[in-house]
């Protein structure tokens, strides 16, 4: 790019009216002495600049046409609104970039297509590259498929394990309910009336037998017979001593 000499600096004191020191004519006049190519470059650059500046002014005019809300908003609301607007700008920019990318890709593919049609398609390096790319893509797809199958198998195994777990859970639950039922039945039976009457009868029999035992004991003691000498007699007496409630 051509160098533009003649850049200037100027100071502006806030109080005194002495103005800054600018005033050199713009360097466009100086470029007339340059070669025609430089002039062309300069003109093109000026054209781009003017276009951009025109765009800025236009967008400013459009912006001022929009109505601004008249009510006085709180600080936080203003900040939130500003952030929303900034996010909108970002989204628009991103969308624009994506569209540009897609457009570039389409242009590239058509240019590539035209190039291929023009050149000899068999011998170019491009064809080799493309064949390589296709081979790699096939490999990728195959490995994708394989990994997909393995994942399916894994999923099946996991499902089966889950089913087994559920089945074992239900079985254990059944066992537990059966046990509880048995316990309940036992308790019911123990508390039933039949058991009570049987127990009462048993108690009475035990008491009657105990009384009879005592009676025999007292008879033998009262008869003053020597029961320690005869072993059969001794056994009988000792048996009478047995406490029946402990059986």
């Amino acid at each position: 790019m051509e160098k533009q000499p003649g850049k200037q600096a100027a100071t502006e004191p806030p109080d005194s009216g002495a103005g800054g020191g600018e005033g050199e004519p713009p360097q466009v006049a100086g470029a007339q002495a340059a070669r025609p190519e430089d002039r062309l470059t300069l003109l093109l650059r000026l054209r781009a600049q003017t276009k951009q500046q025109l765009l800025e002014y236009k967008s400013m005019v459009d912006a001022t046409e929009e109505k601004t809300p008249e009510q006085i908003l709180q600080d936080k609301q203003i900040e939130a609104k500003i952030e929303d607007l900034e996010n909108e700008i970002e989204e628009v920019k991103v969308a624009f970039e994506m569209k540009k990318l897609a457009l570039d890709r389409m242009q590239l593919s058509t240019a590539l297509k035209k190039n291929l049609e023009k050149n000899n398609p068999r011998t170019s390096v491009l064809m080799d590259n493309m064949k390589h790319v296709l081979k790699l893509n096939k490999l990728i797809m195959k490995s994708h498929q394989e990994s997909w199958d393995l994942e399916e198998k894994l999923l099946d195994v996991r499902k089966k394990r889950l089913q087994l777990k559920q089945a074992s859970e239900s079985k254990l639950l059944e066992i537990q309910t059966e046990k509880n039922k048995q316990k309940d039945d036992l308790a019911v039976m123990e508390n039933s009336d039949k058991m009570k009457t049987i127990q009462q009868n048993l108690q009475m029999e035990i008491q009657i037998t105990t009384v009879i035992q005592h009676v025999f004991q007292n008879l033998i003691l009262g008869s003053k017979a020597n029961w320690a000498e005869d072993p059969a007699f001794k056994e009988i007496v000792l048996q009478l001593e047995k406490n029946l409630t402990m059986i």
Partner: protein
Amino acid sequence: MSVLRPLDKQPGLNTATILLVGTEDALLQQLADSMLKEDCASELKVHLARSLPLPSNVNRPRIDLIMFVVNLHSKYSLRNVEESLRHVDATFFLGKVGFLATGAGRESHCSVHRSTVVRLARTYRSPLLFCDPEVDGFRAPVAQRLVRMLQICAGHVPGVSALNLLSLLRSSENPTLEDL
């Protein structure tokens, strides 16, 4: 005129004007010299001012970029900048205003905390640059950045506008500052 408005004058052909506002004249002069030394295809004009409002009787070209220079070593410069901000129209802040903080390297001399300037820049939604002009190596890159920003704000770069640049320069929000 007491309020600076962007786009109120016609742009000069191939000209870009930057206004540096700050209390330290030597610093501004240094920055201006570094900027003018930069290689740039368009013609640059640098205006220096200690504070706004600018005197209205001077015929000056359209101002494309305003940089407010805050010296972190003096609270006066911060206050000066804050007062000058009132004389700038709101439409200027759509990318044509920037803050430049100097003196952040010497932490012991800083009477203005870094976060104050950061908050100021965030309130006005403008980019904040840091510069240490005493170190020679820092001046040239900062001048380069300023020249590039100026070119974009003046419309000399096709396809990029000041607003575009603003959203590009927006740094990600620091979460610790948000909690304050």
